[in-house]
C-alpha cells in the first residue's frame, strides 16, 4: 500500500500538468482573492468622537494617529454628525470614546471604545478594525505593565455599517475552496486513473494480488492529502492575509470539507470509469464539474437571479450545498443543526457516486 502511494506521488511530481494544477493553485487563489481586495492600508481617513477628552483618550488618539495607517480628518462633537460624515464617503472609520473614559478605567479597571466602520469595502473595514484594535490592546498592555499589574481592560466594540454581512470578498473564499477541492480531487484522480487505463498499467495492477479497493485507495490517498494541504493553505491565507474570520468550529469545517473531498473523489472515479482517455477525462471534469461548480453554485452568480430552470439544475450540484455549509460555518459561526440537511444531501450524493462507480467497475470486468 505504501509502495502504491509513493508511486502515485512520483506521478504527481513528475507530471508537468499536475504540477501546474498544484502550483498554479496558490496563484489562482491569490488572483481570485485579490479580485475585490485592496490590502494596502495607508492613511485611511478616520474621524474621532471623544466624549471624554481626558489624558488617556488623548494618548490613545495620539497612538492611533501616529501609526501611519490612519489620517485623522475630523474631530466630531456629537453622535449626530457621524452619519453625515460617513455619507460623504471619505471617512472609513469613526472611533468613539465613552464619556468619563480615564476615570472609569482607573476606578473600575475597564472602559469601552466603539469603532464604526464603513464595510462597503469589507476587507478594508476588517483590516482597519484589526489594526485599531491592535493599537488599543498594545496601549492597555503597556499601561498595565507601567501601573504594576492592576488588571485593566479597554473593551472594543466594533460595528460594521452598510454591509454587516461583509458580502463580496468573503463570498469568494468558500467558492475558491469548493473549486479547488473539486479540481484536485475529482479532476486529478479521474485523469490519473484513466492514465493507468490508457497506458495498460491498470491491467498489470488488476492481475496483481491487490484487491480493486486497495488499488482505488492507493490511488486516491495522495489526492486526499493534497486536497487537504490545499484547504489548509486557503484557510491560512483567508485568515492571516485577508483577515477573514472563521467563526464556527474548525473541526466541523474540516470534517465537512473531508466529506466533500470524498464526494469529489467518488465523482472522479466515476468519470474515470466512463472515459477511455485522459483527454476525455479532463474534458468531462471540465464541463461536467468545473463549469457548473463555478457558474451554478452561487459562487459568482447568485442563484436567486437565475432562470428557474437553472435554479432547479443547481440543486443537483454538490458545490451549491457545500458552499452553503461553509458559509454557515465560517461567516455565521453556526453549528451542524443549521445545515444537517445540506450535509445529508452531500453524504447521499457521495454514496450514490460510489455505488455508481462500483457498478461501472464491475461491468467493465465482466
Amino acid at each position, binding site marked *: 500500500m*505504501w*509502495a*502504491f502511494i*509513493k*508511486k502515485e506521488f*512520483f*506521478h504527481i511530481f*513528475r*507530471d508537468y500538468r499536475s504540477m501546474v494544477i498544484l502550483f498554479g493553485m496558490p496563484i489562482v487563489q491569490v488572483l481570485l482573492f485579490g479580485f475585490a481586495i485592496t490590502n494596502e492600508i495607508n492613511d485611511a481617513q478616520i474621524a474621532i468622537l471623544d466624549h471624554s477628552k481626558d489624558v488617556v483618550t488623548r494618548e490613545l488618539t495620539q497612538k492611533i494617529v501616529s501609526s501611519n495607517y490612519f489620517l485623522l480628518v475630523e474631530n466630531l462633537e456629537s453622535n449626530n454628525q457621524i452619519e453625515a460624515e460617513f455619507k460623504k464617503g471619505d471617512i472609513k472609520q469613526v472611533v468613539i470614546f465613552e464619556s468619563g473614559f480615564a476615570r472609569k478605567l482607573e476606578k473600575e479597571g475597564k472602559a469601552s471604545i466603539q469603532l464604526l466602520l464603513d464595510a462597503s469595502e469589507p476587507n478594508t473595514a476588517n483590516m482597519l478594525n484589526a489594526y485599531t484594535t491592535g493599537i488599543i490592546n498594545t496601549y492597555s498592555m503597556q499601561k498595565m505593565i507601567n501601573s504594576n499589574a492592576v488588571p485593566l481592560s479597554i473593551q472594543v466594540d466594533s460595528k460594521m455599517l452598510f454591509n454587516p454581512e461583509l458580502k463580496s470578498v468573503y463570498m469568494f473564499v468558500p467558492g475558491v475552496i469548493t473549486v479547488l477541492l473539486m479540481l484536485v480531487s475529482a479532476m486529478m484522480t479521474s485523469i490519473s486513473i484513466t492514465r493507468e487505463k490508457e*497506458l*495498460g*498499467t491498470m*491491467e*498489470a*495492477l*488488476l*492481475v*496483481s*494480488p*491487490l*484487491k480493486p479497493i486497495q488499488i482505488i485507495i492507493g490511488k486516491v490517498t495522495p489526492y486526499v492529502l493534497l486536497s487537504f494541504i490545499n484547504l489548509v493553505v486557503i484557510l491560512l491565507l483567508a485568515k492571516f492575509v485577508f483577515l477573514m474570520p472563521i467563526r464556527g468550529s474548525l473541526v466541523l469545517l474540516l470534517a465537512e470539507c473531508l466529506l466533500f473531498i470524498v464526494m469529489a473523489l467518488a465523482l472522479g472515479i466515476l468519470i474515470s470509469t466512463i472515459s477511455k482517455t485522459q483527454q476525455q477525462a479532463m474534458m468531462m471534469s471540465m464541463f461536467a464539474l468545473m463549469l457548473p461548480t463555478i457558474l451554478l453554485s452561487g459562487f459568482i452568480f447568485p442563484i436567486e437571479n437565475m432562470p428557474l430552470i437553472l435554479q432547479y439544475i443547481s440543486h443537483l450540484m454538490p458545490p451549491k450545498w457545500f458552499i452553503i455549509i461553509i458559509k454557515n460555518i465560517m461567516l455565521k459561526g453556526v453549528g451542524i443543526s443549521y445545515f444537517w440537511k445540506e450535509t445529508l444531501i452531500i453524504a447521499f450524493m457521495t454514496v450514490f457516486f460510489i455505488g455508481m462507480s462500483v457498478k461501472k467497475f464491475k461491468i467493465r*470486468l*465482466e
Partner: protein
Amino acid sequence: MNKNDHIIEVRDLVKRFGSFTANDHLNFTVSKGEIFGFLGANGAGKTTAIKILSGLSKPTSGVAIVAGFDVAKYPNKVKKNIGYMSQHFSLYDDMTVKENFRFYGGIFGLSRKSIREKTEYYLEKLKMQNFRNMLLKQIPLGWKQKLAFSVANIHEPAVVFLDEPTGGVDPITRRQFWELIYDSADKGTTVFVTTHYMDEAEYCERVSIMSEGRIEAIGSPGKLKEEFGVNTMDEVFVQIARTPLDPPIGGTDRGNSFKKQVN
C-alpha cells in the same frame, strides 16, 4: 498441482460481447514448463482469452483452470501464481527502472531485500546496470519490453502470460527477448505467449492457431508443418487464415481435422 501436469486447462471456453463471440468453445491444455504459442491474426480473440486466463475478465461459459484453480471462481488464488505482461506496455514511464521494480515487487508482497536482489539479478542479466536510475521513457522500446518481462517474473510465478511482447520490436532485440523466455522456461516457468510473428512460432514448443474466435489448429510447429505439407509456420498460418474466406473448396471437414490434437 493437477494430474497430467497440466498447468492450464481450458474446456469449452466461450466469451461473448453482446451477440459477438470473441472466443468460441476453446479447448486446450498447457503442460508445466512448456512454452506455448497462442497465435492468430489481429482480432482473432487472443487478448480476450489471455484476459480470462489471468482473471481479468470472466468467461461467458466454460471452464479455465490455471495453476490448479478455476479462474472464474478463485481469481485471487490464480493471481498469486501468474505474471502478466499486457499488450500495452505495463511499466511506468515516469518512474526509473529501479522504482518500477520496487513498486511491482511491493505490490506482490516481496520484501525490500528480495526486491533489491531481484533488481540486481535482472539488471545484470539484461546488461542494463547503467540504466538503473533512468526514467523508463528515456529507454528504447525493445529494452523496455525486456524490463517488463523481468518485472512480470519478479515474484517467480508458475505461469507468465505474455500478450504480444515483441510487437514493434526490432529482430535482434526480439531474439534476445526469446532468450529470456527460454531462460525462465528452463527454470520451470510455463510461458504462454501470443504473437503474430510467425518466425517466433517456430521458437515455441507447441502452438495453437486461432481465427475468428476459434482454435483452428494445435500442436508442435513440426507436426503442424507436416500436417499441412508446408515448410514454414507462415504457410500454415496463411492456409488457416484463408480457410474461412473460401469455404466451398475443401469444405467443412477440413476445419474439423485442424482441430484434432496433433501433438
